[in-house]
């Protein structure tokens, strides 16, 4: 069974007096443990797809299921629960809380999910793998962009979400750091079976995924 099922998904925004059709009947199936890249230019609708899958905005029509859970009928509280339990985000701008240490940036995601137990061995291994184990007591500003993005990845998977959504995760990084982050995403995907859906405009980044789909004018096409 697919972990992400999207059927005829549409999203229309109202911009002034004009309706903007960001998604025009998107269909997509993503299998558990798959690493999928959604590639498209700016304005193609890929970020809208990301926001709907992450429960950050509701769809206008169509069906979206994550891990069997339908997003279409979810209200704001339901979408909040979805973000808390089923989805992990990695953003282009890292989005770490500047006042907290790296350890606490990760722990706050656990706190929000109502989990207080210490990190398990598997997660400690991931922290080692991400190369941030020695920097847990530092503040984000003391880390490079690549390191901050690796912390964001750790935070995104600390609650073992059904899917990891990454929106242009290498958009702010140089080539060396980009490759390192993408390598890590792929490694995590292979090692832990974490489903990853990555939005990117960069074909080189997309090459790290198992499968790539193209987003054009609000519609998905196989690459």
């Amino acid at each position, binding site marked *: 069974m697919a972990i992400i099922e999207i059927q005829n998904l549409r999203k229309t925004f109202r911009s002034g007096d004009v309706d903007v059709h960001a998604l025009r009947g998107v269909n997509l199936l993503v299998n558990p443990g798959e690493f999928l890249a959604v590639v498209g230019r700016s304005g193609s609708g890929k970020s809208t797809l990301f*926001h709907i899958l*992450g429960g*950050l*905005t509701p769809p206008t029509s169509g069906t979206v299921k994550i891990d069997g859970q339908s997003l279409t009928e979810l209200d704001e*509280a339901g979408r*909040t*629960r*979805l*973000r*808390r*339990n089923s989805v992990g*985000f990695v*953003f282009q701008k890292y*989005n*770490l*809380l*500047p*006042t*907290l240490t790296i350890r*606490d940036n990760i*722990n*706050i*995601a*656990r*706190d*929000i*999910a109502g989990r207080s137990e210490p990190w398990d061995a598997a997660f400690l291994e991931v922290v080692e793998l991400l190369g941030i184990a020695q920097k847990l007591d530092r503040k984000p500003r003391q880390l490079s962009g690549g390191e901050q993005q690796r912390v964001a990845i750790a*935070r995104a998977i600390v609650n073992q979400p059904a899917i990891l959504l990454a929106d242009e995760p290498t958009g702010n990084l140089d080539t060396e750091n980009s490759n390192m982050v993408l390598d890590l995403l792929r490694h995590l995907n292979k090692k832990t079976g974490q489903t990853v859906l990555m939005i990117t405009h960069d074909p080189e980044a997309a090459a790290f995924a198992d499968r790539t789909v193209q987003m054009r004018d609000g519609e998905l096409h196989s690459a």
Partner: protein
Amino acid sequence: MVYKLVYENLKHRPVRTLLSSLAIGLGVTMMLALVGVGEGMLEDQANRARGAGADLVVRAPGSSVVGMGSLSMNQKILDYVRARPHVTLATPIGIHSTGGVSSIMGINYDEFAAMSGGFRFREGGRLTAPDDVIIDDLYAREKKLKVGSLLHTMNRDWRVSGIFASGKLARVMIPLTVLQELASANGKITMIYVKLDNPANTQAVIDTMKQDLPEYPIYAMEELIKQFSVNNLPELKAFIGVVVSLAVLFGFLVVFLAMYTAVLERTREIGILKALGAGPGYVLGILLRETVLLAIIGSLCGIAMSYGTRWLIATFIPASMVQAIVYSWWPIASLITLAGAILGVLYPALKAARQDALDSLSYD
């Protein structure tokens, strides 16, 4: 975890945290200083009344129990009082207001000294000439007066003949006859202080006097001292009410501004928390806890600053005002401030809780 975030948020902006706490603290200080001055002055007045050494007091008809009073009682009453059984000494007192809460007291020096156990002069000595004045050490310090200095009051100059240790009913004393003349109130006094052969006879003497002088308020000294309470001063109670309201408003405005700015500044961070799955309650909880912590720090600052106001008063105007530290008002002032702070955070916190996660994440 939330407390850590709250603590780090406050630590992250130390100047704002400090200024907000001090501003919140000012409200607490306002309340504590006012209540402290009210209590302190009444306590000081009670101590000085006790220092007169009398067992009972006869006041003019219609006079307030804790008010200064005026020269309105016929001095002939004194003869009646002196003739009562058990009365060993009765001395007339005249009080004349010199503006605000300041007054000057007229005494029969020898009688008053005998009743009060004598003045302890720090400098100089007794009243001798008609234009002599004796003052207590606090008044001397506040007005920077020494023996021989001239004190201008009641439209004339007085020569300071002695400076006595405070605690003897009044801070400024002149001969009663001179006071009566200057106030055009010859034969009039404000009250009579009475010493008995045995304090145990106080109630019996009062009962007898009340039968003969039904319209005169007559109090045992201890009973009179008990009347020196804020509860017997409705004007002060009303003023405290006004200051409490101002303090609530103050706390509300300070927290409203501080937290409104904080919410705007942290829009993106609120978006991050929401993206991680934080619900409105979680965000609300962070801001409420931050406010409670600010109010607690502010209250502690306010309590500390109330010691500062006490020091300022004791240093610069020791004779005009006395501020007590009223411990029982610490929790009251803190809770009032907390209430104002919580009212102040409600709108910013609700705004933050309702913020759209996506819009917040897009905020730069």
